[in-house]
């Protein structure tokens, strides 16, 4: 029925200048919208770079914070960088194996109805707001035991799990069935086919998905506020206690009234932003490379 309208519109040739003007206008709108989005990105990255670069020095990652710092005492956020390393590392160690196993089960073993209901569960998990994950882990672990790096890592792992599972599932689906069949026809058991024939093909995709998931959770603040935020200023690496993290440090410094704190927040934001932009670029590069490899193997 839309074709009918189109024919009628096309036959109404008398309105041509007006129609052309409308078309021009809409093209202009689309160009402007794209320019606006890029402009916002440029302005945002530029503000962070300009303000962050001034306060960026080696002290930021080697010194611990000095509270109420109105003077020039060398002050940094080494405790936050250490905490982020530990917590993101632990979260990856929790989410990565489970995510890969879930994807293997869904792609290689599950019946269709199980497949669709588990992927719905993954989508739902992916859609749960990060702050709700935070209070969930707070209720599960923190009440009665206190905050800890482990609780924060578990919260981040909840966010990573659907991302890792989904990206692994996508590359598993790209592995040609002929490869599996060839291996099975040679009498290789299914588990060995899966682990040593199918899985190595998807390694690039799994690495990409993991890198993207790490980039995503390294900047997450909301799940950590209730699980690992009430900390001192000393540097330590033990996840049995609450650890400071870079996003939480930026959040707290941004709420402060002290301009010296703002400068430090910008510097930490610059480091975080650089890390995330680099990991995203790497992941993008890996993705095109591994996809090309799988599709040419077919």
């Amino acid at each position, binding site marked *: 029925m839309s*074709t009918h309208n*189109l024919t009628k519109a*096309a036959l109404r040739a008398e309105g041509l200048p007006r*129609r052309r003007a*409308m*078309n021009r206008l809409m*093209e202009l709108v*689309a*160009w*402007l*919208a*794209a320019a606006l*989005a890029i402009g*916002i*990105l440029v302005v*945002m990255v530029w503000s*962070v770079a300009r*303000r962050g670069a001034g306060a960026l020095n080696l002290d930021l990652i080697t010194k611990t914070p000095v509270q109420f710092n109105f003077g020039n005492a060398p002050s940094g956020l080494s405790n936050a960088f250490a905490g982020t390393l530990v917590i993101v590392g632990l979260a990856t160690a929790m989410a990565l194996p*489970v995510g890969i*196993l*879930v994807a293997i*089960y869904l792609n290689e073993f*599950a019946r269709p109805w*199980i497949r669709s*209901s*588990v992927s*719905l569960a993954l989508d739902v*998990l992916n*859609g*749960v*707001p*990060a*702050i*709700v*994950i*935070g*209070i*969930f882990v707070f*209720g*599960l672990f923190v009440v009665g035991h206190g905050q800890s790096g482990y609780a924060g890592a578990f919260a981040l792992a*909840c966010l990573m799990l659907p991302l890792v*599972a989904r990206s692994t599932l996508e590359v598993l689906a790209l592995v040609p069935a002929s490869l599996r069949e060839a291996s099975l026809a040679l*009498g290789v*058991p*299914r*588990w*060995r086919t*899966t682990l040593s024939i199918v899985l190595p093909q998807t390694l690039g995709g799994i690495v990409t998905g993991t890198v993207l998931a790490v*980039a995503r959770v390294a*900047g*997450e603040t*909301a799940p950590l506020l209730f699980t690992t935020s009430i900390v001192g200023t000393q540097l330590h690496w033990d996840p049995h206690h609450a650890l400071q993290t870079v*996003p939480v440090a*930026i*959040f707290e410094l*941004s*709420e402060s009234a002290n301009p010296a704190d703002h400068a430090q927040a*910008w510097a930490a934001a610059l480091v*975080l932003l650089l890390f995330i932009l680099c990991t*995203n670029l790497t992941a993008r590069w890996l993705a095109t490379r591994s996809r090309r490899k799988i599709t040419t193997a077919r």
Partner: protein
Amino acid sequence: MTEIEAPRLSGRRFRPGDLSLQTVAGAAALAASALVVLIAYTIVRDSKPAWSAYGLGFVTRAVWDPVKHVYGAGSFLFGTVVTSLAALAIATPLAIAIALFLTELAPRWLRGPVTALVETLAAIPSVVIGLWGILVLGPVLRDHVEPALHSALGFMPLFGPPSTTGSSMFTAIVVLTIMILPIVSSISRELFLGVPRDLKEGALALGTTRWEMVRGVVFPYARGGIAAAMILGLGRAVGEAIAVTQVIGSTVSVSANLFSTGDTLASKIAASYQGAEDKAQVSSLVYLGLILLVFSLVMNVSAQLIVRRVVRRQGTSTRAGVA
């Protein structure tokens, strides 16, 4: 050479390796699904004191008074609905325009880089957007945009007196718009890429302009998917806690003036992470989380249902087209 084991032609050999991989992987899948249930259970359990004390009236009551122990979600619900719907209303047309630019308009060499840049916007952590929002965007909006809107459209209560600090619902709306723009535009872009070429070329061959082709062919084809993209964007806006906490000003108020401060469900929870001591307050915070969880479940499941319906319909229509 040595003898080769004769293949068994009938029946399946019992392979412990197969069984163990299937069991372990199945347990992981079960655990992932159980996690969703565990989240729901824990949130419901921890908010029980609040909902048994305040009932459903909590959802609409606009009070949050830790001194008198009277809690309600009304003003936060108001803030959530206003900020996320306004952000969605601004972001959707922009996102669709960007997606059209990327699929129909941009020269080929420009498409890859612009797509990558728009997706980079989605990768910026919310705490960094919030930092920028409170220290850069907020003051600019307060000094230039809010006074201009107030003097031009001040007869509407929406555009009342400008904020004094730069923290306002309006700043939150702008920040949320920036955050959901790349989500809606990248889904729309994929939808528009899926519109069959012959339909588009057929319309152009009938003498339509490019815009008429978009209205007559691309939009009807992608309508369901755009609805799903909007729901997902709305879900993101509703659940965003950190950036909103940083820019909204954290007050318990219901005001028609967009330039006044407020709070949303998610930002209230984030702002209360320190100092929530007594049981009534903590369980009331978890009750806010329960409302958020219900929101996000409803939105996600409905978006998934729409996507599945669209995929099925498009699958059958292309198959019919081939036959």
